[in-house]
């Protein structure tokens, strides 16, 4: 019995809690990608850098707050700085839309052109971020590190394995739940949210119904900037802030959006967790779990791992390819690309 509990604790500590955290980060990122796809009808490759930009502004504001001694112990100060980060990122996305995307929208450009333009935006933003904050690693986490320490858990339960819950993990999961709930409430119960869905569903009919496309586009960018800043900051808090990491995050984020059904917000959330858990389940070393559950005298040479952790990124790529071959519309039937 203790062995089973030990095995479960092990899985909880190294698989379930990290999976929920990473999944929440991907879900928020994928939600932004799917909104742009649903309303503006293109794959926004600049989204990763938008996340990095929002996180960067939040970090700069966090440092400012820290230097004047403002904090919200035990929570990280960055939470206090996020609204400013969102505001600046909203201004950025609206400026980019005004000076880059609007031109192509007015000419009714092909989605492929938008996609390539968004890659240009990605490189521009990447450069801008490196100019401002540098390419290095930035640590901006403060506040209490652990809500539950492994040692305390062991003392509490008498198990050999410990379960720890980091503050950043709890903050990430709770924030994601709040943001996603608010987002769905907005999309399903407000006039503006419904007009966004209508525009995404049928642009011409939305026009005939008197829905102002410029306003829908503006609100979409505001939401995307907010989601990107929150997702970027949460990721930075949990891991650390390194500009190039956000570019690498693009793949799992796009995989999440597509696996769930691109253009479908529910799908983006589900996709985020599917990708996160797949990555962890396939690269987790089950050796100790097997030892706990197996017979007393069992000995294992290998780590009992499906794939080395170096293959993490490959997992999302493989899932992406499988989904595109078998069910291109994704789990929740979004639009096909």
């Amino acid at each position, binding site marked *: 019995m203790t062995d089973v509990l030990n095995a479960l604790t092990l899985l909880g500590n190294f698989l379930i809690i990290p999976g929920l955290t990473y999944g929440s980060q991907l879900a928020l990122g994928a939600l932004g990608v799917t909104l742009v796809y649903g309303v503006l009808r293109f794959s926004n490759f600049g989204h990763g850098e938008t996340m990095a930009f929002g996180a960067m502004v939040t970090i700069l504001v966090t440092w400012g707050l820290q230097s004047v001694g403002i904090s919200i112990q035990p929570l990280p100060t960055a939470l206090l700085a996020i609204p400013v980060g969102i505001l600046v990122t909203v201004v950025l996305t609206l400026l980019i839309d005004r000076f880059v995307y609007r031109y192509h929208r007015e000419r009714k450009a092909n989605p492929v052109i938008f996609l390539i333009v968004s890659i240009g935006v990605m490189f521009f933003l990447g450069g801008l971020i490196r100019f401002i904050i540098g390419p290095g690693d930035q640590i901006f986490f403060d506040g209490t590190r652990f809500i539950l320490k492994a040692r305390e858990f062991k003392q509490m339960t008498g198990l050999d394995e410990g379960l720890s819950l980091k503050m950043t993990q709890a903050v990430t999961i709770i924030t994601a739940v709040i943001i996603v709930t608010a987002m769905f409430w907005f999309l399903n119960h407000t006039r503006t949210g*419904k007009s966004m*869905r209508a525009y995404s*569903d049928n642009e011409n*009919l*939305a*026009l*005939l*119904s*008197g829905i102002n496309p410029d306003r829908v586009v503006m609100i979409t960018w505001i939401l995307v900037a907010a989601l990107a800043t929150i997702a970027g900051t949460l990721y930075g808090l949990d891991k650390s802030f390194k500009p190039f990491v956000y570019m690498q995050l693009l793949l799992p984020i796009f995989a999440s959006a597509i696996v769930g059904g691109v253009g479908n917000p529910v799908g983006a959330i589900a996709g985020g967790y599917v990708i996160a858990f797949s990555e962890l389940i396939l690269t987790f070393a089950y050796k100790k779990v097997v030892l706990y559950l197996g017979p007393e005298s069992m000995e294992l040479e290998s780590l009992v791992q499906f794939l080395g952790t170096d293959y993490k990124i490959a997992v999302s790529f493989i899932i992406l390819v499988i989904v595109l071959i078998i069910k291109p519309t994704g789990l929740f039937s979004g639009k096909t690309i």
Partner: protein
Amino acid sequence: MSFLLGEQMTGGYGAADILHNCSIGVEKGEIAVIVGPNGAGKSTAMKAVFGMLPLRQGRVMFDGEDVTQLKPEERVVKGMGFVPQTHNVFTSMTVEENLEMGAFIRTESIADSIAQVYDLFPILKEKRKQPAGELSGGQRQQVAVGRALMTHPKVLMLDEPTAGVSPIVMDELFDRIIEIARLDVAILMVEQNAKQALEIADKGYVLVQGHNRFTDTGEALLANPEVRKAFLGG
């Protein structure tokens, strides 16, 4: 002058004109029907009246005002409602949300209008929480017409409202359209089912290759041997 009048309209999508000197008009409380063979420019004529086709010549008068230069969405605000032939509902949204979106330009309470649409199409009340994309063809058309009615249009334009529905549903839809006309709404519609449509029409336009070929009351057109022979199958 008619309440809504597309006068001597000439124009097309590219270099070649589809409409040639074509005139279409309708009065309040009246039903006007545009019929003609395939490719006669029926839908094009209606789109021209609604501003979805650039006109090289001619003008569109609505309620005593020249609206030729207005975009379709601006004409909606003026009181023109349009039901496209296809893609005329928000498939991922519920019936009720479709109606709400139809009334997007209105700031006052829309509960009365929704109730009115439900009175007209009782089945929609039953299905109001269901996504419009899951409804049958006939029910979808009802949603489409209901959505357009939500703006309280003074003129309602329908592009082949009975396309792809069964004859029973078609009769039912025509009955509803007559009811809408009784509310003092001008109705302009394009129809494939020429005979049935002319039976309920106050005015009929027979178009051939973008020209007005015959223009008369629905009754007179049905009685006209030439029209019968060429367009109504004898």
